[in-house]
């Protein structure tokens, strides 16, 4: 398949994602900041290490091993802060995420040019959190779309440097999946430059474990 014939549906997915209703964790750091993000759930395990030249952009390496789609993706990811609203006690953001690289299907199939596009939005105070993300992927010709939304509450308010704890509920929609809609209660621990999330997906009885380290 030529690049153009692949790019057309990819662009359509991006357009759709950009206009989808409102996401997930902040993929952009401060100028000169590095971030390592690792996400693990029942379907996939991914690693994203990125550098932020500005407070609005980041670029880095992204790798994902996806057991749901039997594919390994390796490539570059660019994240763009589209808009930030800073309030006296709140912050809201919208982001664009683009990835391009190579997908290697499990088995004998050869690797193919692949990619993904995502739109994310979040709103956060020191007590409340809400986010939404839409992500369209084309991994070796296997196209799919996912939606993920979260709400969270901090049972106590800590100072800078304290251990912060969040109780969250994540709902995922993956129309092509065996379980199109899944719910994952999780707990987020946040201290200094590190964030850890542990959860359990009720429908699939699978563990969620995420890490973010910023330095």
């Amino acid at each position, binding site marked *: 398949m030529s690049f153009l014939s692949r790019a057309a549906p990819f662009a359509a997915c991006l357009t759709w994602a950009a206009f989808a209703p409102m996401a997930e964790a902040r993929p952009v750091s401060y100028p000169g900041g590095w971030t390592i993000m690792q996400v693990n759930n029942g379907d996939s395990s991914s690693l994203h290490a990125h550098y932020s030249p500005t407070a609005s952009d980041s670029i880095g390496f992204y790798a994902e091993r996806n057991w749901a789609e039997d594919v390994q993706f390796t490539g570059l990811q660019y994240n763009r802060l589209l808009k930030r609203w800073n309030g*006296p006690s709140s912050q809201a953001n919208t982001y664009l995420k683009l990835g391009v690289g190579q997908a290697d299907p499990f088995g004998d199939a050869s690797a193919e040019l692949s990619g993904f596009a995502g739109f994310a939005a979040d709103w956060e105070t*020191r007590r409340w959190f809400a986010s939404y993300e839409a992500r369209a992927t084309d991994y070796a010709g296997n196209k799919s779309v996912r939606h993920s939304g979260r709400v969270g509450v901090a049972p106590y308010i800590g100072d800078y440097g304290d251990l912060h704890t969040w109780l969250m509920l994540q709902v995922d929609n993956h129309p092509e999946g065996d379980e199109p809609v899944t719910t994952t209660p999780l707990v987020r621990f946040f201290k200094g430059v590190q964030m850890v999330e542990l959860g359990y997906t009720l429908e699939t009885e699978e563990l969620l474990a995420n890490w973010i380290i910023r330095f």
Partner: protein
Amino acid sequence: MKLIKTAFASVAFSLLATPAMAEQPMDHSKMDHSAHADMVVEPNTDADPAASAQTVTAKVNGLVCDFCAQAVRKVFKKQEAVESVNVDLDTGEIVLGLKAGATLDDETIGKLIRKSGYSLVSIDRGEGA
């Protein structure tokens, strides 16, 4: 099987990432340093702001988490004039302690806060201004 893979990947990454913990901010005023004198830490309180030649307090919108606080600290700590940076998430304030004889004008402070990704509301200069 997926559960095992997930758990294994997480543990493996945790082990790889452990050195990064050395940078996590801590409140040193409550700690005994003798047991980890070799650690590289980055506390919120670099020095007593009152001991600085001049303090500047900037009220900022958008400071809601430790990542936000770290962002403004990292950006201001690169400034030659800045001796200490203290972030108070409760009040949304950044307290800058300036070095003796050093200055940092309002325009530069506003620019650095915007560069960090946040919005400046007001600037209050201490008595030493």
